[in-house]
């Protein structure tokens, strides 16, 4: 059994004049100690997916259907009380902007100790010792001093180290990291990402990494999901997708990466932009930007088809597989 199994998750936003669908039919799994990448443009629903796992979607968003099975228990159907025992304890989160994540009027120590005391019946002193240990693990200089400092006294990189330390406080099974380095200076992004990966590996924590950076995903994750307009359009082993992307959108994303060692080469661009939630096109949401689009694509959302170890939702890919199969049959 997978550690985390999301089945057919639907998330909607209740707004004036009806609901907007933010996530539709999201299904994926995460195994113990696995590193999973979640990529897509901004607005594709990556963050919504990340936050919906612990039911932390901002209002007016709500989970409209599906299951989120963590060790077999459905988080989507759990009471707030039960869910609280899992948040921060079994599944920890790392937010995007370390400047906004820590409470400006409470000391680092307070914010670390309270997280421990929310889940463990131990003394403040013991909790403080754990906090200190985790600060040492994230290699923060003079950790003892940090406990009594306020967030504004720390740099962005240090704050993100603190947040990683908080994520590790209670030895969680899963860490969900929502663009953990995007808000940082480019020079320290790699440093923080290395730290996070090393610690996850050391402690055997599963990592769900949300990012728009295909480069990072290809380097650090074992499996990846590609999201577009609230749907997963392709998922499978990272290496297979990067080397041989099936979905036209994924291909576009990969072609849009600047190629190393090819100075002067034109950057590829996917024409158009992702539709807003308010006017998602019928059928395959990518069809207005897709050069392979047919009338069929406008009519209905394609089902997933399997190509190698990759699941893809695309009629064109399905057709190709079908043709290949027929050719093989014809040969034999």
């Amino acid at each position: 059994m997978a550690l985390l199994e999301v089945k057919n998750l639907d998330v909607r936003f209740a707004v004036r004049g009806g609901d907007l669908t933010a996530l539709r039919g999201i299904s994926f799994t995460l195994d113990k100690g696995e590193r999973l990448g979640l990529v897509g443009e901004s607005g594709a629903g990556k963050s919504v997916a990340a936050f919906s796992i612990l039911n932390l979607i901002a209002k007016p968003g709500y989970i409209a259907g599906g299951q989120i099975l963590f060790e077999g228990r459905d988080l989507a159907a759990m009471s707030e009380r039960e869910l609280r025992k899992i948040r921060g304890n079994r599944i920890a989160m790392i937010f995007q902007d370390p400047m906004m994540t820590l409470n400006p009027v409470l000391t680092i120590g307070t914010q670390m100790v309270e997280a421990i005391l929310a889940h463990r019946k131990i003394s403040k002193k013991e909790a403080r010792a754990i906090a200190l240990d985790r600060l040492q693990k994230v290699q923060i200089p003079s950790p003892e001093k940090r406990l009594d400092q306020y967030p504004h006294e720390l740099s962005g990189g240090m704050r993100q180290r603190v947040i990683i330390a908080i994520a590790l406080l209670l030895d969680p099974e899963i860490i969900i990291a929502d663009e953990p380095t995007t808000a940082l200076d480019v020079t320290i992004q790699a440093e923080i990402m290395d730290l996070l990966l090393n610690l996850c590996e050391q402690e055997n924590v599963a990592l769900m990494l949300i990012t728009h950076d295909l480069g990072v995903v290809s380097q650090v994750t074992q499996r990846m999901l590609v999201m577009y307009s609230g749907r997963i359009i392709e998922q499978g082993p990272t290496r297979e997708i990067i080397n041989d992307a099936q979905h036209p959108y994924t291909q576009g994303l990969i072609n849009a990466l600047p190629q190393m060692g090819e100075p002067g080469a034109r950057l590829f661009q996917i024409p158009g932009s992702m539709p807003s939630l308010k006017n998602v096109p019928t059928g395959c949401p990518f069809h207005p930007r897709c050069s392979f689009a047919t009338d069929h694509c406008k009519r209905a959302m394609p089902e997933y088809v399997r190509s190698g170890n990759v699941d893809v939702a695309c009629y064109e890919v399905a057709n190709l597989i079908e043709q290949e199969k027929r050719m093989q049959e014809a040969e034999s």
Partner: protein
Amino acid sequence: MLAFLVQRISQAVLVMFVISLIAFAIQDGLGDPLQEMVGMSVSAEEREAIREELGLNDPFLVQYLRFAGKAVQGDLGNSYFYSKPALEVIAEHLPATLELVIGASLMIIFLSVPIGVYAAIRPQAWLSKFFMGVSTVGISIPVFLTAIVLIQLFSIGVTVSWFPDDTGWGQWLNDFFTTEGGLPSYGRGDDLVHLFGTWESGLFTAEGLAHLILPCVSLASIMLPLFIRLIRAEMMEVLQSDYIRYARAKGLAAGRINFLHALKNTMLPVITVGGVQIGIMVAYTILTETVFQWPGLGLMFLEAITRSDIPLIVAYLMVVGLIFVITNTLVDLIYGLVNPTVKLTGKKA
């Protein structure tokens, strides 16, 4: 800390200088002190002699410096009406106003925080909507009108006979809308306790407290809706912030999130705005004290205006200016102590 104090004190001196200049200009430009001091029978020559003697013919700057020099020594001239030092008159009236302001402030703090927080946490609850509706209406009612309605209801009393008296429900409704009245609505009562100096307090006797009720409720009524709306708005904004969502992601209990993480951040802007509101409250004491004939500074000031008691008007302006300067400094100091991102140098770190 020292730098902060020096900066604040120099600012305060500057503000007091401007206020004293305005106050003196009023004194200089307004009315003729001679008219108040001597009768109609005095001849023009005699008047001129007295003017010269009093220094009223000196240039503006000389007169101002004399005025300022005396003011620093605590001499703001004699009140025409009371025929004693204006500051002494103010000292006699100050305690009544202070007790009124303290009573109203306590009511505001102990009601606005819980109501504002509740309305922010449960914006959809009918009780929240009720509180917000009442405060919208409350903001539109001038303080003197609230005071008049309170007097009608709880001092004079209202007898309602709109419903048929021979049915049980009619009688019940009539009784429900009928108010007894009887609460005092005039002055502070006779049963005051002498504390020290000029401080006669009404806080320690049943009669004194009874006299405080209606004026305090009136004064509080104008600020309460403002504070409820302010606290609710700030709290709702704070609740949207990333660090609150992060606190939830850490698995903290709702109580800790709302009352520590959110409330502490909510109170920062509320403290600043609250400091400004103290100034507005002083203005409202003039209205409240007029309605209730409360023998405080506000009533004294208004009477001084009708009596053209210029030294007393000027002294009032100076003292009120001083109160503003002191409270604003205190508010900044408290803000600096509560907000860790402000170092007490007056600048954001």
